[in-house]
């Protein structure tokens, strides 16, 4: 569906993207992660036919993104990172225009407007960031197309709307859509993505299935003991203690089993795992790359 092969765009000697390759298949959500200015949006702009590559190529559904941009955009729904609709138009007017510029589906539109409801009569210039984002989500997914490209899709959304968008994305994935999603929000990446790539300074430094990444990632557990002597006794084995709480870092699945067996000999109040496993992993890569 989405195929990027050794894509290079040089803005100058150090800025741009270099030798970027990735593939997104039907029924897959591909997470594109990276710090600001790493090259995520530049890569996405190539897919939308806005930039001409110096080397390599990008194609969607077999159509070259620069040469056959009209055909590409017929089969792509795009959610930009910065929502900049004409300020004087209302939400309803934008939706109406989208209905005519794109081939949209009335049932999907109704469904989306229910899930991401907002005051459509408001002019864009009066909209909050969240409202603009909901409008952009509706106009992006109104098109029933095989490919979606999403640049920071949950940006500006409240937690309830983030949850609804994640549910929507999972449904879309299950119906066979190919989705490329750039984000800084690791929990949503963990829940939705099948595969992810980390880009830094214009180069992809890691690309793997989320499951493999999870397995390789460092897991942190915070254990709260019922008494300080127990916490002190447990922390003697290279764990970090803070009062009754002890943090344990696990790198291999067998270490986790050993931990559980050991904890059976202690009185503990709570056991919590660090939620952002991927975040830790990617932060590790950020650090290595710098």
């Amino acid at each position, binding site marked *: 569906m989405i195929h990027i092969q050794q894509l290079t765009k040089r803005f100058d000697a150090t800025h741009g993207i270099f030798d970027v390759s990735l593939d997104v298949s039907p029924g897959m959500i591909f997470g594109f992660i990276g710090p600001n200015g790493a090259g995520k949006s530049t890569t996405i702009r190539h897919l939308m036919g806005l930039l*001409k590559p110096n080397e390599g190529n990008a194609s969607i559904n077999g159509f070259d993104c620069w040469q056959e941009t009209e055909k590409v955009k017929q089969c792509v729904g795009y959610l930009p990172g910065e929502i900049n609709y004409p300020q004087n138009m209302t939400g309803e007017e*934008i939706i109406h225009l989208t209905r005519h510029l794109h081939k949209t589906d009335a049932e999907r539109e109704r469904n989306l407007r229910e899930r991401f409801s907002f005051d459509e009569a408001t002019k864009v210039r009066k909209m909050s960031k969240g409202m603009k984002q909901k409008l952009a989500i509706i106009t992006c997914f109104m098109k029933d197309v095989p490919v979606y490209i999403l640049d920071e899709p949950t940006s500006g959304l409240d937690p309830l709307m983030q949850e609804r968008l994640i549910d929507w994305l999972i449904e879309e994935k299950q119906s066979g859509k190919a989705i490329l999603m750039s984000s800084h929000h690791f929990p949503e990446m963990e829940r939705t993505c099948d595969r992810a790539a980390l880009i830094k300074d214009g180069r992809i430094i890691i690309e793997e299935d989320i499951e493999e990444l999870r397995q390789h990632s460092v897991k942190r557990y915070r254990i709260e003991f019922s008494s300080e002597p127990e916490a002190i006794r447990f922390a003697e084995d290279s764990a970090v203690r803070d009062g009754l709480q002890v943090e344990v870092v696990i790198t291999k699945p067998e270490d986790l089993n050993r931990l559980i067996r050991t904890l059976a000999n202690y009185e503990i109040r709570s056991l919590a795992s660090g939620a952002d496993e991927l975040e830790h992993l990617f932060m590790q890569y950020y650090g290595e790359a710098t």
Partner: protein
Amino acid sequence: MLIRSMFKQNRSWILGYSIGTSVYLFFLAAIFPSIQETGLIEAKLESLPKELLDVFQIDATMAMDNILNLLSSNYYGLIFYVLAVLFALTFASKLLAKPVDSGEIMLYMAAPISRVTYIISSFVILLVAVGLFVGLNGLSLMMADLLFDLQIDYSVLWMLQLNGALMLLVLGVAAYMTASLFDDSNKSYMVTGGIFTFFLIVNIINGVSEQFKWMSNISFFSLFDAPAIMREEFWGVHFIWLFGLLFILSACSFIRFTRKDLTI
């Protein structure tokens, strides 16, 4: 749908120029008979130095017995040049420079629309805007003629409108082409405004003295010569030049915009 949407977003300034100038022309035409009776215009023209009349391309020998004669040295002189420059800058800014700079153009670029279609749609909007501008100008004078019996020669009136329309089209496309060179709307506005101001100054200087007459050859504005049309002199060369420039500038706009990297 694209053209309709673009027109809807731009109709306020298009109607502003068209209706504003037409109302000005109508009222000038309405009061013309009373001004003519007083003989104030001739007296005023006689009192002005020849150099000043040349700078503003006013033909003092032309009898002010007709509203078109008055307009050729009034509205269809420096006023029209300045209006045309502002009109062209507004067009290029609203249809290209600002949408690219702010990212608003993504509303269209995300749709299955090619850049060629976008440029063609922009030029259709320009054509409609110019049509409304000169069309309403001409109609307002025709209406004034019907109401106040001004004895306007309609063939001369519409020849002035046609020449004006071509001038507006050339300036509009030139501004659009310059806007396509930049991502920053302020820069595009400054460069285009600078170029047009240069041509405007060149056009003014060429009237100052015979030794600067050659300067008329390098200014767009010398291609709109209302007094020459009033004198029914040969205007065909001007029209050929305007059509030629329109073709070249349009081709440059297409080439530039279809190859441009859009960092939106």
